[in-house]
């Protein structure tokens, strides 16, 4: 295969995949199946364990956590006189193989969010050295609704490298400079895409769209929330079903809120105190989330916090800033929500104006 450019369409034989992955000079994160069947992104797993078709359902925890982990050390400090700070080493290059379209869309959003106004050092440094090899979805789970949220199942833009599974081989679409860089020097693994494969890709896309079991009328949600035309009663009924577990925020690949915590070790005999500052995921549904020092909170009740979450995800004011609705349709909140007040359930409730409505099928 000659020069590879952004926009190139190639093929990669599955027989060559392990060799290709082995050739990468980077940490490799890839999906494997755990003991009880769930899919998990592991760092440098044994190559033969890597899931490599479009048939597995997405991971329980989004691979977004590889770039924005649940907890991470911001810096270590040593106190004896003037404080000395020590920052984590710069991140190693990382390739995420097998990431789904929805999670790619989420990472693109996070890159925008974490670099606007101020550049969030830990996230942006990691994102800069990360290349995504996504696999277009052909097997939506029963909870997936990415077509409603510009989150998939295939990506038309925003990907570095997109693979489309054709059994024995992948169609390889090069979508960015980073993707091109990753393949450069590795041209030998690839062949030009044969005539007709793009048409087959497009019909595969159409077939996949037919497999989605649920839909979420995001536009209606946006309109209702932005125009404030949701009754207080409806909000109250939905908020009553929330048990404030924070599960939705923790599995949501677009949720970025975090808390910052200091830890201090017992004093060393020479009088030096050591410790670290870390950040960890936080959730706007927690009572302590907006709590101020004197114990006052601007969102003291569950109702106001519940509205807050869906205002952030659905209001047009946020869309205008973020360039997308605050959901990629990955369906993980459906999986974790005990109260059935996940995204499609809420949007459907806003639409039908009745609670306990069965999700739109």
């Amino acid at each position: 295969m000659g020069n590879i450019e952004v926009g190139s369409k190639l093929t990669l034989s599955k027989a060559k995949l392990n060799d290709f992955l082995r050739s990468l000079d980077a940490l490799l994160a890839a999906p494997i199946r755990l003991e009880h069947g769930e899919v998990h992104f592991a760092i440098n797993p044994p190559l033969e364990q890597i899931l490599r078709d479009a048939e597995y359902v997405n991971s329980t925890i989004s691979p977004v956590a590889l770039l924005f982990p649940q907890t991470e050390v911001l810096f270590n400090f040593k106190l004896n006189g003037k404080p000395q700070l020590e920052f984590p080493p710069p991140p190693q290059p990382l390739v995420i193989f097998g990431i789904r379209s929805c999670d790619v869309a989420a990472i693109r959003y996070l890159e925008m969010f974490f670099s606007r106004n101020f550049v969030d050092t830990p996230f942006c440094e990691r994102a800069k050295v990360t290349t995504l090899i996504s696999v277009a979805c052909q097997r939506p789970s029963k909870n997936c609704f990415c077509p409603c949220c510009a989150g998939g199942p295939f990506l038309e833009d925003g990907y570095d490298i997109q693979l489309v599974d054709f059994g024995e081989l992948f169609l390889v679409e090069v979508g960015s400079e980073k993707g091109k860089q990753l393949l450069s020097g590795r041209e030998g693994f690839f062949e030009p895409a044969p005539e007709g494969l793009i048409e087959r890709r497009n019909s595969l896309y159409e077939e996949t769209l037919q497999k989605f079991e649920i839909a979420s009328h995001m536009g209606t949600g946006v309109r209702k929330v932005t125009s404030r035309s949701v009754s207080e009663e409806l909000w109250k009924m939905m908020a009553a079903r929330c048990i404030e577990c924070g599960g939705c925020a923790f599995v949501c690949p677009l949720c970025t809120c975090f808390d910052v915590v200091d830890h201090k070790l017992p004093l060393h005999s020479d009088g030096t105190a050591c410790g670290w500052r870390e950040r960890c995921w936080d959730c706007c549904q927690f009572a302590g989330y907006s709590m101020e020092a004197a114990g006052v909170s601007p969102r003291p009740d569950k109702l106001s916090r519940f509205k807050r979450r869906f205002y952030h995800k659905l209001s047009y004011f946020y869309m205008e800033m973020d360039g997308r609705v605050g959901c990629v349709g990955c369906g993980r909140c459906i999986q974790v929500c005990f109260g059935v007040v996940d995204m499609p359930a809420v949007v459907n409730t806003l639409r039908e104006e009745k609670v306990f409505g069965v999700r739109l099928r």
Partner: protein
Amino acid sequence: MRKHLYEPMPARIIEVIDETPDVKTFTLQVEDGIVDYRPGQFAEVSVFGVGEAPFGISSSPTWTKRTGYIQVTVRAVGKVTRALHNLKVGEYVGVRAPLGNGFPVEKAEGKRVIIVGGGIGLPPLRSLLNYMLDNRERFGKITVLYGARTPADMVFKRELAEWSTRPDVEYLDTVDIADEEWQRLGKRVGVVTTLFPILDEQSPIEPHNTVAFICGPPIMIHFVILELEKRNVPPENIISTLERHMKCGVGKCGHCAIGHKYVCVDGPVFSWAEMKELEWMSAEKSV
């Protein structure tokens, strides 16, 4: 330039001033210095091992240019503030500053300025006032209205006395509950809004030539705005600050969000016109 967004610069405590039984002013020498800031901007101050908290900078940029120091005035109410109160001169804290938008001082140029402070809300206004006094010719008549719970709760007492005697500042104060000394001197008792009728008598507000800056507890801000609206001061000329838990200070952690605004980067200073819009958008109030 810091290499890491969340990196606090080491800052040595140069002086600790007891303002009230639970309020102290800390004079800090920040390593690498703080180049410039606007009155109303804030600093994230770290007590390493305890945490970080936001405080309005109480010194004026003009004073910082002269001394190289900045000041924050802190009431001990929570974990970080109590730990801060236990620190002594010569010990270190961390500082990330300046953050936030600050007061739109240029808006007040050539205008009558009314500064209304309540209790511990005075520190950022002190930054503003001292900045204005150092650039006195750029501003019109300056009026300071200060209210506190008790005389003991008044901060910057030495400066209050100075302002009250300066010919180029109109200074009025009041307390909710007087002590013996206060009574003996026959000084004013009542909430800060009771000072407005006095202004009507001695120096009436010309609404379109007036810019008001307010900082204090939310309930005080609310009633002061009502007084200013009654006197037809346009909403764009009523400037106040919003209090939220600004944890990261750079618009990332999410804690201080109101509607789609982040108090830490879009504020903490907002005009009453903006605040009304925010309330309209604020999720907890009106979705």
